[in-house]
């Protein structure tokens, strides 16, 4: 890749890898060494065609809006979908200097154009996404950000309403609409377990 990055999204369309967003440090003298500070968020998108490795990584149009990391990304056919995620309001990655996106976009790899989709049902941070049946995108995990992020409120006026996201959201790429499945992902058990042995088969999801 052109430079080291953390918290990016990675999607696969055919034999093309698409890396998007995350945080990077643009150090021309040492581009492959990542330092947490002063790393900056990015909305840059690069692709690698596995059938044309000689070309190397090439640029695609950046994700609209500001920088984006820890978001949901998946490809269905020649379209790449991006959902929610977070961004830094400054170099310090905590507290009210961390912002969250609710918007969603699709990149048509044939037209090389992004188009805005209906907003994700909530601001989410650290979700993951996976395509299903060449039509749906399933998203779960991460945090559900519910606190108000308004400049006219003091921090004390924004209750601690954020929680883990245990909902399973399905995006229908044909209808371009979301649906939340009635079956939720259970919270992580706090029981200690030996590494590699903790496998839980949970309740069945209804048909999509």
């Amino acid at each position, binding site marked *: 890749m052109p430079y080291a990055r953390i918290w990016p999204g990675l999607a696969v369309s055919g034999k093309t890898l698409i890396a998007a967003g995350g945080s990077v440090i643009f150090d021309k003298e040492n581009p492959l060494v990542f330092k947490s500070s002063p790393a900056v968020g990015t909305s840059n998108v690069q692709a690698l065609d596995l059938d044309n490795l000689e070309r190397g990584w090439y640029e695609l149009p950046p994700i609209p809006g500001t920088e984006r990391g820890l978001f949901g990304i998946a490809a269905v056919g020649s379209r790449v979908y991006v959902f929610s995620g977070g961004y830094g309001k400054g170099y310090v990655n905590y507290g009210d200097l961390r912002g969250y996106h609710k918007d969603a976009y699709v990149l048509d790899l044939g037209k090389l154009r992004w188009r805005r989709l209906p907003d994700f049902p909530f601001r989410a941070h650290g979700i993951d996404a996976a395509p*299903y049946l060449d039509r749906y995108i399933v998203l779960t995990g991460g945090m559900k950000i519910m606190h108000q992020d308004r400049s006219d409120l003091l921090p004390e006026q924004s209750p*601690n309403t954020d929680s883990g996201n245990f909902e399973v959201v399905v995006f229908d790429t044909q209808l371009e609409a979301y649906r939340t499945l009635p079956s939720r992902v*259970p919270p992580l058990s706090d029981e200690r377990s030996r590494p590699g042995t903790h*496998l839980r088969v949970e309740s069945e999801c209804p048909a999509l």
Partner: protein
Amino acid sequence: MNEAGRELISGWKANVPPYDWMTFYDFSKGIYRQSPKLRVIGDRFYLLGGDIVGTVKNASDELLVGTVVK
């Protein structure tokens, strides 16, 4: 959470607002999985791992399996 983790979070508390989940998360809401990996194989969903700031383990070694019923 180990001592180093407790020290790290105690340093955050004075500098972050009360809604900062990374510092003040109420684990009675359920332990979250930050940045897990989700994949679908056939009609089964596999949710692997995740980052948990402020718990004993700090990370999940769990593989969760969900099934789509047709």
